[in-house]
């Protein structure tokens, strides 16, 4: 039942799809009785001949009955028959035929191999051109394979490159981080220096203020009596010093 299903669906596919008919024909290539493909190869050499004109098959045909000399006897007998019965008469045409035969045989023997070699060369050149194209294609593909192998080898060494780059990047990052830490450090130091300066300023100002206050108090506490007595003392000190100096000078 399933096989019937397959057959029916195959039939439907053949008739419906555009490729279906073609697929059916594909399976029937080279099977019809009129088919000539594939063409059989040409024979390498022409038919074998004895003495250039008599096919070898004649000799093979006569060999079982008349042996090796059979066909030659046949030829000689025929010739004798034609001549003696005057079916063929020797006349001037015979002479001219003999002359023509000499020319033909001489030219075939002399130029035959050269002409055959020339024809073979023409065919060889044709083949060679196609071979060249094929060889070029093969060479270019081989070159492509070589290049690909080189690329793969190159890729193996690439990890060194990547490591170096990675190190480079790590170093850059490190440098950057250190710079930033340095900057932060400097900024923080600046802030702290500011605070210190502020504090020292504050202390100094306090100190100066205290000193000036003390001085002011002291100066204000000096009574005019004390000032007179201190000035008189200073004068007497100075006089005594001047006397001492004078005494030193005269001594």
């Amino acid at each position, binding site marked *: 039942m399933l096989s019937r299903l397959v057959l029916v669906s195959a039939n439907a596919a053949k008739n419906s799809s555009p490729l279906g008919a073609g697929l059916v024909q594909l399976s029937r290539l080279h099977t019809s009785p009129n088919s000539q493909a594939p063409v059989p190869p040409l024979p390498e050499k022409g038919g074998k001949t004895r003495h250039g004109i008599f096919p070898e098959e004649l000799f093979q045909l006569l060999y079982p009955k008349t042996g090796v000399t059979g066909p030659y006897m046949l030829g000689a007998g025929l010739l004798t028959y034609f001549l003696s019965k005057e079916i063929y008469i020797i*006349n*001037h*045409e015979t002479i*001219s035929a003999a002359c023509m035969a000499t020319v033909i045989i001489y030219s075939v023997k002399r130029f035959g191999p050269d002409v055959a070699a020339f024809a073979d060369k*023409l065919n060889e050149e*044709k083949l060679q051109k196609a071979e060249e194209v094929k060889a070029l294609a093969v060479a270019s593909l081989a070159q492509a394979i070589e290049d690909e192998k080189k690329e793969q080898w190159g890729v193996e060494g690439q990890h060194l490159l990547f490591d170096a780059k990675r190190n480079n990047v790590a170093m850059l990052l490190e440098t950057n981080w250190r710079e930033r830490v340095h900057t932060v450090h400097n900024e923080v130091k600046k802030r702290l220096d500011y605070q210190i300066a502020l504090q020292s300023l504050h202390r100094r100002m306090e100190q100066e203020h205290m000193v000036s206050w003390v001085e002011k108090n002291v100066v204000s506490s000096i009574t005019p009596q004390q000032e007179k007595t201190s000035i008189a003392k200073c004068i007497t000190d100075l006089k005594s010093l001047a006397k001492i100096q004078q005494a030193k000078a005269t001594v």
Partner: protein
Amino acid sequence: MMLNFFDQFMSPVLLGIPLIALALLLPWILFPNPAARWINNRLITLQGWSISQATHQLFTPLNQGGHKWATLLISLMIFLISLNLLGLLPYTFTPTTQLSLNMAFAVPLWLATVIVGLRNQPTIALGHLLPEGTPLPLIPVLIIIETISLFIRPLALGVRLTANLTAGHLLIQLIATAVFVLLPLMPTVAILTASVLFLLTLLEVAVAMIQAYVFILLLSLYLQENV
């Protein structure tokens, strides 16, 4: 059968059937068709090579319009060469010894070249009647002479081929007869005459091919003037 020297030039008839038709058709079987193969046997390769060489030689001087005549002229040349060469074999009939056949080739082809020239480029075709650089007083005479030469052309083409082949065949016959007659009488003289015959045969082979080639070459030259 005793042959006379005129038999070879009579159009052969067997029981009322003209055999010249066979003589004209049978050379066709000597030229194989190229097979549907990329590399052929030696005969087809050589045939193709020689035909392409001849075509190249003959049609390179011609312009595009002349190349249309290539099939006709090259096939005619192959036909004439094969007829001439086959006629050298003994007991064969050479159709090209018949003036009727050669005129039948020459006149229509020559006339076709003239008509093509007069239709497409009448001034240039008529201008060929006067060679360049002729002095003024000679012009009328020269035009008459050139017109006569123009109309002689087909006659010359046909008669040249006929005469060459007929004369060659006749000479071969005569000298072969001389050898045949002298052979029992004076064998040495016969040998000498036979050597003359050998050289003549070589000449005739050459003439057979050359005459066919010349026929076609002249036609191509006439075409070159007119196309």
